[in-house]
């Protein structure tokens, strides 16, 4: 007897719960990943979304923040697959509200921001440039400079500042957190550097 897609998804959820309870959340994740992969190969994205939504909710209940945020990254990108920007935004906003943060979620959030032209404002706090001595020295940067994305900051550094290697400290106005980025716009070559540094007193 052929099962309906709804019944298939319910069976998968039942089995996933079983694995998570009796084995581990990691095993549960592996199971969900393999099943959603199979579904997506057949372009059954809605079923995949239902599974990721189940997983996100279950991980939230278990206080598994990393996996919760991983599931959110899947939900945002899957809604983008099916061009449902409204639902993608719903999870994007939830992720911001719940202060979820992970490598995968940051990727998904940036894709969503670019797609929807929404933005997270970032303000440059400090730019330090590597000087001829190999030390990073603070350079003047307007405190009012605000950018939507890190790549726009990179463009600013590339277009507005002389060539160099920079450490940029930014403040993310939406998440109220500071972020660091190292950006090089000069040609760097590899050297075997023999280095002696002395602090001396002179009198």
């Amino acid at each position, binding site marked *: 007897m052929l099962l309906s897609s709804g019944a298939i998804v319910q069976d998968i959820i039942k089995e996933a719960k079983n694995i998570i309870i009796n084995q581990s959340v990691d095993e549960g994740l592996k199971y969900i990943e393999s099943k959603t*992969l199979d579904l*997506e*190969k057949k*372009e059954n994205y809605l079923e995949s979304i239902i599974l990721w939504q189940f997983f996100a909710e279950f991980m939230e209940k278990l206080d598994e923040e990393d996996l919760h945020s991983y599931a959110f*990254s899947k939900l945002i*990108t899957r809604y*983008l*697959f099916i061009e449902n920007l409204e639902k993608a935004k719903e999870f994007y906003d939830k992720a911001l509200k719940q202060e979820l943060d992970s*490598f*995968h979620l*940051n*990727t*998904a959030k*940036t*894709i969503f921001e*670019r797609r929807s032209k929404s933005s997270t404002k970032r303000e440059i706090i400090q730019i330090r440039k590597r*000087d*001829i*001595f*190999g*030390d990073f020295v603070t350079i003047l940067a307007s405190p009012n400079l605000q950018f939507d*994305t*890190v*790549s*726009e900051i*990179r*463009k600013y550094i590339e277009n507005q500042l002389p060539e*160099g*290697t920079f450490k940029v400290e930014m403040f993310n106005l939406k998440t109220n957190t500071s972020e660091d980025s190292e950006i090089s716009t*000069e*040609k*760097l*070559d*590899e*050297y*075997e*550097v*023999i*280095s*002696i*540094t*002395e*602090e*001396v*007193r*002179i*009198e």
Partner: protein
Amino acid sequence: MVEKKTIWGSTRYFIRIEPNTNLFSTSMDGLVSFYDTGGLINHRECNNLHEIVRTVQEFWSTILPPHETRVARWVEEYFTELGIQNDYNIILRLIKSEELIEQRIEDLILETTVINTAHFEEVFETDEKSKIIGVEVSTTHIPDDTYIQSELIQKLIEDNKYQVPNEVKSGKQFKLTNGETKNIDTNNSIDIGDSIGDITISSRLKNEYNEAITDIKIVDEIPYCFSIDDMTIEGIDIKPVIKKKEKILEIEWKIPEITPGSKAKIKYKMKQKINRTILEIIENKINVFNTFEEIVPSGLEFVANTKYINAHKKIVEELHIMDELPPEFDVLKSNPEAIPPRGIIEKARLKGVNIRWQQKNINPGQILEKTYSLDYFPYLFRGKKIVKDAEGNIILKAAKFIQPIDNEIGYRLVYILKCIRDVEEIISIEDAIPISHVITTKDPPDDQVMEQTNDEGKRIITWIANPPAKEQEKLLMIQISGDTQPLFETFKIYIGDKKETEIIKKESSIAREMTNLSW
């Protein structure tokens, strides 16, 4: 710069892989970046090939349904375009994460035991200050799966290669007049020497007592990866006793007496050798050996002649050799030529050069020789001084750079001054170059540079500079002609009639760096 490549099936998303090595293996690391037409979306530093391919897969799956075979083909094509020989099946297996390779390999290894290598040292004609270190690794079996076997071999080579330390142990023992014996253990740092490739270790003992200390024994542990060019003890004519220990060469100095406040100062001048790791497979047994190969000057370059002998009475079914060059060297050519898969010159970014060989069925007594022509890896000497006043405030920063000049016999010396606060007096930077070296040009040409010879037979050059304005830099570039190496020494600095009175802190290091040298 490695090009970014469009994700198949998309026109606006790209991935760039920047591997740190040209050797395809599961331990290769690198950076994976994900872009759209608006720029960078995210990137990740990956520690191994598994992380690299999984990151590509993860980026891919954020914008398209992931098909493992397509991702594997894309990665295969990417590596091929970079000129890296690779294996589609390994990439696909890693993307699918079909098996926990690491765990499987751990399960294969049963026991590692140290073996007596006296016979091998005799056959290899190992010199009296060097040693062959060997272990036998017993395994449940040698896996038939070539991928698992290759991973096992790589793991054993990595786990058993000789580790170059950052510091070495030194044990000191002496007697007080009341007959009490004191023991002090210290770690001595491995410092850079006068010139590229030179390494020094200083071992000291100061008598802090108000009485003479007697029957002094200083035992320094020198790693086998260094060849000792010279070892001296200041002011005393004694020779040390040298003993070969399992992993280090033990140098024991016996000093009759040190008077109160005096010091025993021992100095070792050394060079680093090639660390060779040899892995043999003989009838389900695996032996791993460490040998150390000298690098000797040959004209304007260097050469290393290496030799492997099958010292067993049985055929070595499989032989793997990894030659790890000292970081200051690059390989110009090898004889026989390293042609993959039998020989691979592995160049890992910011890490150095390894030359790997593999061969099957080596008969008892059969000799395999490899010769390497070497030259220095592009190097840079950076001597930096942070100059402080009596109150500890920074007055200025000064630096000296030595940079070889391509295709010319000689080098460039660059001096830089930067005043952190206002300085009014003339600043002098005094430096030394070998007596046979001469200044050919200087820039700015009108800057004043004095030359004289000192008692040690060195040419002293002194740059007399007007102080730059606060936070401004002043630079002097001198081109030197000379067919010997420059001196890797720092300089002396004077501000008016004030001179250096104390070194508050000193650090030295040798490391690969990505840097820009457009002065």
